[in-house]
C-alpha cells in the first residue's frame, strides 16, 4: 500500500468539509497532515503571498499553504464553483486552485465541483482518487463512507445545538462563514470573550437543511450565494430562540457585504456586525462586544419585569 501524505490547510473550506476529507483519505489509507492553528507567522506569510484585494480569510489560507509546503506529498486545494443549480459560490473558491498553483511551487491534489456543468462532488472525489492511484471502486466506497459519516455527524451536532437552546443564560448566535467563526485569529478570540461573559454560543453552520429556500426568502429573494444562504437560513431558524446575533465578516467580503445588509434590515432582535481585518488591536472589538452583552442583559431584565407586572 502506498503511503501518501496529504496536507490539508486549516483554513477556508476546512471548517466545512473536515470530516468528509478526513474520512475519505483515511479510508484510502493516506496519511493526513493538518496545518497548525492560524498564528501570527501564518498570517504574515499569507499577507506576503496574497493579492492586496484578497479578504483576510483568503490571506490566512495562503499562509497555511506556505506552512504545509515541503511537509507532505500533496496539498489539498479544491475548486468549488457551483454546488446547487442556480446558485454560485464566492469566486475565490473557484479561483483557489489556480491562485495556489501560480503562487507556490508545490504539488496540489484537487477536486472540481461544478454542478451547473454536471460535475458532481462524487465524480470529483473519484477523479481525485484516480490521480492518487486508486481505482474507481476504491474511491467511490471511500466517498460513500465519508459522506454518510459526515452527514450523520451533522445531525448529531444539530441535536446537541438544539439542546443548548434550552439553557437559561444569554444565548448569542455567532453567524458567519465557518472559516471566520472557527479561525484561531478571527472567531476564536470572540468566542473566548463571549464564553468568559457566561454566554451560550449557537453557531450558524449547524442548521436544519429542510425548507432552507423558503426561510431565505423571508430575508431576501435574490441571494444566489450558497454559503450565504446557509447563514441566512440559520439566522431565521434560531432568531426566536436566542437573545442576539453577532454577524462576523472578514474584510473585504463581497457576498457578505450584500447579504449582511439584508440581514441587518430584516432581523428584529439585537444584532451587530463585526468586520475583522488584519489589524492587530482588538480594543474596539472588546468594547463592541461588551456593550452588546450589556444591551442583551438590560433587555432581558426589562422583559422579565414586564412579565412579572
Amino acid at each position: 500500500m502506498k503511503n501518501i501524505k496529504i496536507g490539508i490547510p486549516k483554513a477556508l473550506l476546512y471548517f466545512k468539509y473536515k470530516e468528509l476529507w478526513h474520512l475519505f483519505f483515511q479510508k484510502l489509507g493516506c496519511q493526513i497532515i493538518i496545518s497548525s492553528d492560524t498564528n501570527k507567522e501564518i498570517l504574515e506569510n499569507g499577507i506576503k503571498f496574497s493579492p492586496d484585494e484578497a479578504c483576510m480569510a483568503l490571506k490566512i489560507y495562503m499562509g497555511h499553504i506556505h506552512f504545509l509546503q515541503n511537509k507532505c506529498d500533496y496539498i489539498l486545494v479544491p475548486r468549488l464553483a457551483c454546488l446547487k443549480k442556480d446558485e454560485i459560490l464566492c469566486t475565490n473558491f473557484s479561483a483557489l486552485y489556480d491562485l495556489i498553483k501560480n503562487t507556490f511551487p508545490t504539488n496540489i491534489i484537487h477536486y472540481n465541483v461544478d454542478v451547473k456543468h454536471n460535475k458532481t462532488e462524487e465524480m470529483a472525489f473519484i477523479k481525485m482518487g484516480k490521480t492518487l492511484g486508486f481505482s474507481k471502486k476504491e474511491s467511490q466506497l471511500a466517498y460513500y463512507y465519508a459522506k454518510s459519516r459526515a452527514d450523520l455527524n451533522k445531525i448529531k451536532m444539530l441535536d446537541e445545538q438544539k439542546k443548548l437552546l434550552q439553557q437559561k443564560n444569554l444565548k448569542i448566535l455567532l453567524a458567519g462563514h465557518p472559516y471566520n467563526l472557527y479561525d484561531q485569529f478571527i472567531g476564536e478570540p470572540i468566542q473566548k470573550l463571549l464564553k468568559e461573559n457566561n454566554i451560550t454560543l449557537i453557531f450558524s453552520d449547524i442548521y436544519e437543511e429542510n425548507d432552507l429556500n423558503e426561510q431565505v426568502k423571508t430575508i431576501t429573494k435574490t441571494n444566489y450565494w450558497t454559503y450565504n444562504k446557509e447563514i441566512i437560513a440559520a439566522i431565521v431558524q434560531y432568531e426566536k430562540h436566542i437573545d442576539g446575533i453577532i454577524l462576523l465578516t472578514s474584510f473585504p467580503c463581497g457576498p457578505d457585504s450584500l447579504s449582511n445588509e439584508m440581514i441587518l434590515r430584516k432581523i428584529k432582535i439585537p444584532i451587530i456586525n463585526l468586520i475583522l481585518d488584519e489589524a492587530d488591536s482588538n480594543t474596539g472589538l472588546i468594547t463592541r462586544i461588551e456593550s452588546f452583552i450589556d444591551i442583551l442583559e438590560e433587555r432581558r431584565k426589562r422583559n422579565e419585569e414586564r412579565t412579572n407586572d
Partner: protein
Amino acid sequence: MITINAYLGVDIGSISTKAVIIDEENNIIASDYIWTKANPIHAVKTLIENLEKQIQNKDIKIKGIGTTGSARKLIGVMLNANVVKNEITAHAIGTLSLHPDVRTIFEIGGQDSKIILIEDGIVVDYAMNTLCAAGTGAFLSSQAQRLGMNVEDFGPIALTSKNPTKIAARCTVFAESDLVHKAQMGYKKEDIIAGLCQSVVNNYLNNVGKGKKIISPIIFQGGVSKNIGVKKAFEQEVGENVIVDENGHLMGALGVAILSKSTPLKSEFTFKIMEADFDTKGIECKGCSNHCEIICVRKNQKLIDSWGNRCNKGALK
C-alpha cells in the same frame, strides 16, 4: 460633621481624562477634566489630586470606584476599581441619570465617534466608527493647525459664515486635500471652517449614523460637542433640536460612578494610593510564533496585573 458616602468615576479617553465624585443621590460633589497626553497613569494621578483638593473640607468616604474609556482596564487595576465598564454603557447610564427621556446620543470624541439609541431608558442599538477616524476631534484639531488657528475658535467663526464651502466629507485624506484646494482658490476662512463643521456632521451621519433612526430628544456629547458650529450643522441636517449639556464631557465618568454604587468595593480607597509608583512595561512573549505583546502593570516595582496574551503560555500571574 456627617460622613458622606461617595463614589468615584473616571473616564480615560485618548485625548482627555475626566473624573467625578458623586454622593448617594448622584449629585456631583467634585469633578475635573484634563488632557491625557498619552500618559493615562500620570493623568489620573493629577486628576485625583485635583479632586482631593476640591473635597478637602468635607468628610467624604469613597465607597466605590468605576473606570471607563479606552484605558479603563489599566486604570481599573491601578485604582482597584470595583466596576470596569465599556464607554457605551457608561455614557448611556450617565446621560440617562440627567436626561431620563433621551432617545439618541451623538458622541464625537478625540479618536472615535458613537451613536447610542435608547428606548424606554435602555440602550437598544449603537454604532462606533470602525476602520476610520474621519470627522473626529483629532481631525478638526489637525485642520485647525493647518489653518493656523485654535480649534476652540472654530465654533464661533463657523457661525459667521453665510455660505459654507462644500468639503468632501467621506474621508479625512480627501477632506484635507479638498480643504487645501479650496483655501488656494480663495474661499473665505469662515466659509471653509463652516464647511469643515458640516463635513464632520455629514461624515458622522453617513458613517456611524448610517441606517439608524434618529429620534429626539437628541443629546450631543464628547469634545467636539463644545464646537457650536458642529452643533448647528447637526440641527440643520437632522431637522431637530440638539441638546448640548454643559456637563456633557462628564457623562462617561458619571455613568461608571453610578454603576459602582451598586457593586461593593473590594478594598478601601484612600487618596494615599496616588503616592504609590505605577508603571507599565510591554514585553513580547516568546512562547510561540504569535509573539503576543503582554502589558505588565507594576505598583512600586511589583507586578500587580498583566494582559495581552492570547493563551496561557503568556500568563504571568
